[in-house]
């Protein structure tokens, strides 16, 4: 009987209910496990069922432009600014931050643990031609990595530089398999289950700051966008309740994200 009921529910599930909101988020946000804490609380407090589309920042922005999602939660400032400048979003609201970290083989053949800056760490990897896995998927993490390479001003054309074109978790799996260096966000790394011989080798350069921002899609471009729900969700994401849940989310005693939304002016 319960099976039949479940099947009926499954069939009716094809029709989206009025309180469903589609939110495109970055893989790093989802792989960190934070969404599993926030979504039930959002449903409980606001009645909104947030349907997450877990994609890279590049694809999240494309989904927002096409109007296939109601809002996006991403982490790449230049891409966000371009999105807003073209009128696809109504406004940008900062929610929380964490930081990017360099992961690599614990033996650390490129000695990046002794590096002074992120650019220096990359320069050391390039010098020793240690294997480096790049996301290569136009995501926020990938864009950050590319900007760091530009800052380091070294060539990365060799065989040792391997763009995999995959999400954060899949890229970490590849790095674990090749015992390679990789740039990851701290949250995804802490929540990652297959660490193998990898370890966190370098962090703390201010340039590795990673801000997540929420942008509702412009309802003037797409009539079907649930703008009222997007506003409701923004209010919740910037509320003291969200602050408490985000700041208290820890893995092995380490805080993953820090809430930094400003109260509405």
């Amino acid at each position, binding site marked *: 009987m319960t099976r039949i009921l479940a099947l009926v529910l*499954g069939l009716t599930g094809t029709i989206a209910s009025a309180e469903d909101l589609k939110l495109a988020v970055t893989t790093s946000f989802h792989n960190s496990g934070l969404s599993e804490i926030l979504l039930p609380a959002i449903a409980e407090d606001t009645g909104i069922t947030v349907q997450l589309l877990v994609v890279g920042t590049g694809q999240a922005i494309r989904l927002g432009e096409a109007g296939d999602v109601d809002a996006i939660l991403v982490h790449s400032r230049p891409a966000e600014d371009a999105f807003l400048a073209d009128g696809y979003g109504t406004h940008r609201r900062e929610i929380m931050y964490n930081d990017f970290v360099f992961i690599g083989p614990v033996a650390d053949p490129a000695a990046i643990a002794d590096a002074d800056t992120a650019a220096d760490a990359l320069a050391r990897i390039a010098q020793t031609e240690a294997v480096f896995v790049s996301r290569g998927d136009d995501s926020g993490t990938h864009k950050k990595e590319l900007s760091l390479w530009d800052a380091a001003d070294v060539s990365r054309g060799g065989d040792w530089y391997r763009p995999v074109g995959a999400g954060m978790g899949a890229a970490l799996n590849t790095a674990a398999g090749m015992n390679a260096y990789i740039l990851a966000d701290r949250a995804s790394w802490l929540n990652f289950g297959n*660490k193998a011989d990898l370890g966190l080798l370098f962090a703390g350069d201010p340039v590795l700051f990673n801000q997540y921002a929420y942008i509702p899609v412009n309802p003037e471009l797409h009539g079907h966008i649930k703008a009222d729900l997007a506003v409701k969700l923004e209010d919740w994401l910037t509320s003291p309740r969200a602050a408490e849940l985000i700041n208290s989310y820890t893995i092995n005693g380490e805080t993953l994200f820090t809430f930094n939304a400003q109260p509405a002016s």
Partner: protein
Amino acid sequence: MGEIWEGLMAGLWLVVTLDPDLVEITLRSLQVTLTAVVIGSAIALPFGAWLAIRRFRHRRATIALLNALMGLPPVVVGLIVYLLLSRSGPFGVLGLLFTPTAMIIAQVIIITPLIASIAHQSIRDIWSEYHDLLISLSTTKRQRIATLIWDGRRALMTASLAGFGRAIGEVGAIMIVGGNIDHATRVLTTAIALETGKGDFALALGLGFVLIGLAIAVNVATHMIGRTESDGKW
């Protein structure tokens, strides 16, 4: 080796405890794929039969094309269906992107040529046997197709099962058009991809074993309903 063993245990545990999430995504996998197989078969079986008995100018080319379409890359089908159903695409007003309906559409496109091709092959063999009889009885084309489909039902079941096999294990297209949304479009294959991304191989493998078990169960059930291999029937 340890991880495969852990995966087997994780899969068993999920099944034994009837994990609610597992039941939900398994039912959705079945719902999407069985719907796609029913729609695909409804198109492909009569088409395969029609192609077997009908002689026309570009028949050879049509058959060659049909056989080639068996190898249609799912990820390309997914991308095209995605672009068609996107809000900025021609069918955007329907709002179907990221729903199970979109996943069914993609799977129908992927499996229909496969079912039609296998159906055509087997019906052609029956047709060579039945040709003189059906012609001498001066049957209509519709009657001939119906007779061939009915008498070839066991072979056609294999055609549909091949379609089922291709659809149930497919991940490329449904990941793109479904979006792997929890409680909305997550199915077994996309859940496996997700858990692999988290580095949780035991759970991913556990789901994989459930998927394989499901495919076996559906095939066995079909044979039992069709009473193949029993009591002098074959």
